């Protein structure tokens, strides 16, 4: 048993070392009025920050946009990902090439592709395509409000990259299902649509859940990247970017911490659901 704990030590120390203090700090600060703008130290204010947030219309707008962003990107990523996985599931000529093409958006490092993507869709200087992109940008911004195009372009990027990850991930999931199950299904029903919903989806459900969870927890990194890249010019706030805004621009660490912790209960609930699918207690006895 000592060996087991020794082997667990490096990973645990790394995770705790990097995360424990920051999370504790955030939780504590969310209960205080810590701000570099105050001339006194942090004062304990209880749940005041949370109460303020709940009364703030901007907060609810950010929550709405966050939920909308997460729902739309996740649905799109899942639809495309499932389609990719099903396309690749059966052998055909040139499968390797198509597989590599579908793998590419995820393999292409997002840290740099998001820069390229962003500047391509909002060109900073005159290029051959900037009149077209500019026109598109002003049409969208005019219809939906300033900054809509920038937000939309990040959404598209997120879907583009996420669908690639989910597609490859689900392909691995399909490979893990014994093929006999699909063959049986073929005998049971001639309707591909029915087979998909009655057999493929239930069989893949744990993998779908894991893919969705991973895509949710990483979905906001792209927005954060662009937020930094444009010095906060993304005017469509999501909970994460609004927290940045409060902390870095406004110096209000208390409300910012409260804000950034706000989605955690939701994610934890999702996680509990995921564990039921992916790590069922029955397995322990097997």
């Amino acid at each position, binding site marked *: 048993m000592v*060996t087991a704990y020794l082997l667990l030590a490096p*990973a645990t120390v790394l995770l705790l070392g990097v995360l424990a203090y920051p999370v504790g700090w955030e939780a504590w600060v969310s209960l205080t009025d810590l701000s570099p703008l105050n001339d006194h130290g942090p004062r304990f204010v209880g749940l005041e920050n949370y109460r303020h947030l709940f009364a703030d219309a901007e907060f609810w707008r950010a929550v709405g946009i966050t939920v909308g962003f997460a729902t739309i990107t996740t649905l799109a990523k899942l639809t495309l990902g499932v389609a990719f996985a099903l*396309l690749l599931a059966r052998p055909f000529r040139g499968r390797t090439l198509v597989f590599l093409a579908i793998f590419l958006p995820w393999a292409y490092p997002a840290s740099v592709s998001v820069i*390229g993507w962003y500047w*391509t869709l909002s060109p900073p200087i005159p290029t051959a395509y900037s009149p077209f992109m500019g026109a598109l940008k002003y049409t969208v911004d005019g219809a939906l409000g300033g900054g809509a195009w920038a937000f939309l372009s990040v959404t598209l990027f997120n879907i583009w990259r996420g669908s690639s990850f989910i597609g490859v991930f689900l392909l691995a999931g399909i490979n893990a299902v014994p093929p006999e199950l699909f063959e049986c299904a073929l005998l049971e029903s001639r309707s591909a649509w029915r087979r998909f919903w009655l057999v493929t989806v239930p069989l893949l459900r744990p993998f779908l859940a894991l893919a969705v969870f*991973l895509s949710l927890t990483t979905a906001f990194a792209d927005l*954060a990247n662009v937020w*930094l890249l444009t010095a906060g010019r993304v005017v469509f706030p999501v909970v994460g970017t609004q927290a940045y805004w409060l902390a*870095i621009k406004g110096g209000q660490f208390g409300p910012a911490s409260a804000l950034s912790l706000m989605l955690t209960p939701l994610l934890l609930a999702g996680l509990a659901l995921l564990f039921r699918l*992916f790590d069922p207690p029955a397995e322990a006895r097997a």
Partner: protein
Amino acid sequence: MNPRPWWRRAGHASLLLVATVYCVFPIYFMLVQSLKTAQEDVFGNPFIVTNPTLENFEELFERKGQPRNFVGRALRRDYPFFVWLENTLVIFGGSVIVTLLAGVAAAYALGRLRPPGFRWWRRAIFATYVVPHTILFVPLYQVVIRLDLDDNPLVLLLVYPTLALPFCIWILSAYFQNLPREIEESALVEGASRAVAFWRIVLPMSRPVLIAAGIFTLGTIASDFMIASVFLLSEHNQTIPAGLATMEVALDELLAVAGINLMAIPVVLLCAVFARGYVRGLTAAMIEGA
């Protein structure tokens, strides 16, 4: 075997074509751009390059201290791209190694040795994904300064593994957990120690899962841009993503695109080489894990 009507085959083929174009086009677009002269970037057709040139790439590697031209009245900055490349290689390589070492050790303990409460331990590790990363770097910076690691690439070697470790531990331990016990036991009966049995038998068997974990780690850390640009301040310590973010895009757009491609090509090649292994490893972990 089952002859399908031509229209179904055509439908399949066109779906494949659409999927391929959708996935590849943005990358193609960036590649084409990086091969253009400024002239062609402004006046040429945006989708093709007629006079491909490597001048943008060459310019990135030009030695420092040479005068660079003006655009209007703005002097174009020098970029120590070679240093960035070196830093990126060291940090990425180091992070993947750290992740795999810590991950394999923890996964072996959780999947094979199973200390009491191992399931909750594994769940707790995975649950770290829930931690909101939004303003985490503020308190993290306090730790970094306390440890005197400010502006030190070493920080990333500690932070990057935490982004990928939970997932890696999850798939590796799922795999180890369901490897038949007899495989190791036969070696133990022959008198080998547990460590030798692991090194000689378990590790070689888990190659695909190790590849999957490694590629996932690489893809994850290669997508980070925020942590790198927050913690690496001075130019000579930056990685490519952090450095590119400091570029004056308005002046050096083509240069930036070339930099993007130079960063991407090695990562993409590595991923492409191991792509099959990645899927095979994920599959192996899923068969055991689900």
